[in-house]
């Protein structure tokens, strides 16, 4: 389980998060939707401390992320993160991107890490691209390697920050298919996305963010089908 309680975050004088609460149960998939600037990416990044919340509480399992005694590197090993811009390590092959963490942090042998990595590459449909350098991969392939890299740490939860926003349209589907498979495997996930059809299909709950708070949250059929809040209605009417 991961949860956030009354999370505040400012950049300079700009208050981006104004007290956000969210509890994600084990195996649950929550999609964060909302306009640009609503704070959804910042909020997502608070869950693994890429942004440090100014105030509030983030709990990963039973570890309080913001407590001074918490080793944030240890917590991050338990939460996978997938970025909009993929952020594959450009100097390493697909396989080495995936094995770097397991070898250095999980202390696996190289052989063991590579066996696991090849299984993950097969899972994301890239078994034959293990030796490829990132610059030789398409955007969709890069993102699938990035997902495999995050899964290689055997995380308890996964965070996705607009995983298909930087992709050419024809590559969106291959990435969504992989994410769907991971979700079906029972992974706890928080996904920031603009793919409303995907959110509706995959999410257990959808959270609509507006002006630094979660404005409305509920099952996808309710949020998309019968939104209660006027802001949610306005947002959805613009993009659907």
């Amino acid at each position, binding site marked *: 389980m991961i949860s956030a309680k009354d999370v505040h975050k400012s950049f300079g004088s700009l208050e981006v998060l104004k007290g956000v609460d969210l509890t994600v149960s084990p195996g649950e998939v929550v999609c964060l939707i909302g306009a640009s600037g609503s704070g959804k990416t910042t909020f997502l990044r608070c869950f693994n401390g890429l942004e440090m919340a100014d105030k509030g509480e983030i709990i990963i399992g039973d570890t309080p992320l913001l407590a001074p005694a918490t080793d944030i*590197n240890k917590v991050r090993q338990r939460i996978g*993160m997938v970025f909009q811009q993929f*952020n594959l*390590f*450009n100097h390493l092959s697909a396989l080495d991107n995936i094995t770097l963490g397991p070898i*250095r*942090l999980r202390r696996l042998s190289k052989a063991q890490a590579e066996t696991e990595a090849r299984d993950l590459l097969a899972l994301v449909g890239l078994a034959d691209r293990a030796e490829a350098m990132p610059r030789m991969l398409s955007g969709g392939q890069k993102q699938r390697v990035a997902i495999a890299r995050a899964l290689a740490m055997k995380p308890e939860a996964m965070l996705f920050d607009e995983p298909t926003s930087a992709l050419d349209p024809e590559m969106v589907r291959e990435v969504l298919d992989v994410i769907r498979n991971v979700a079906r495997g029972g992974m706890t996930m928080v996904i920031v996305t603009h793919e409303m059809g995907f959110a509706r299909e995959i999410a257990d709950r959808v959270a609509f963010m507006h002006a630094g708070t979660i404005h409305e949250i509920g099952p996808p059929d309710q949020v998309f089908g019968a939104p209660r809040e006027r802001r949610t209605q306005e947002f959805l009417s613009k993009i659907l």
Partner: protein
Amino acid sequence: MSDQSWLDYIPLLLEGAALTIIVTFISMIGGTSIGIILAIMKISSSKLLQGCANTYGGLVRGLPLLVQILLVYFALPALTGVRMPAVVAGTAAITLFTGAFMAEIIRSGIQSVDRGQMEAGRSIGFGHWQTMRLVIWPQAFWVMLPNMVNQFSITLKDTSLLSVIGVVELTMAGERIYTMNFDTIRVLAMVGVIYLIIYLFAERVAAWLERRVSA
């Protein structure tokens, strides 16, 4: 005009060239070490560290290298009472000088690596320095390499200034020969060719390194 064969000059010139290469390499290695420390200070969040690094860079880049060599050779012993051999003082001065320029090369190399690379490393669970070592440095190095080769060529030529304090590097070796036999043009041409060969060799090594990695 001398009736000496130009072949007779070679042993002394090669001796000078050897010292030139040694001084250049020590200065490059020392300068890179200083440059790494200064670069880390420059990109740190501490205003004090940034200020120290920038002051150092400003002083070293603002003064002529010749003045710095003379300062280290003459002024430092006068202040501290420790007299250094000319070659040591000269190498130290060039090292300190090279360090200021290496700092800029290294800083811009590190900052050329996309911010997302650091975030990806941290999100996997690597610490800041571990991410630097495993992810940032290996990528930054290839950005720095052409500039480092450029700096090598500058440092290589700067070592000729050590002739002023009596270090018998390549330029001084040539001077010793032509002040005795007045075969000035031929000796200087040979000195020039040797500098060029050293530089071209370093350039080829760098190009070979780059090819090997991009292959």
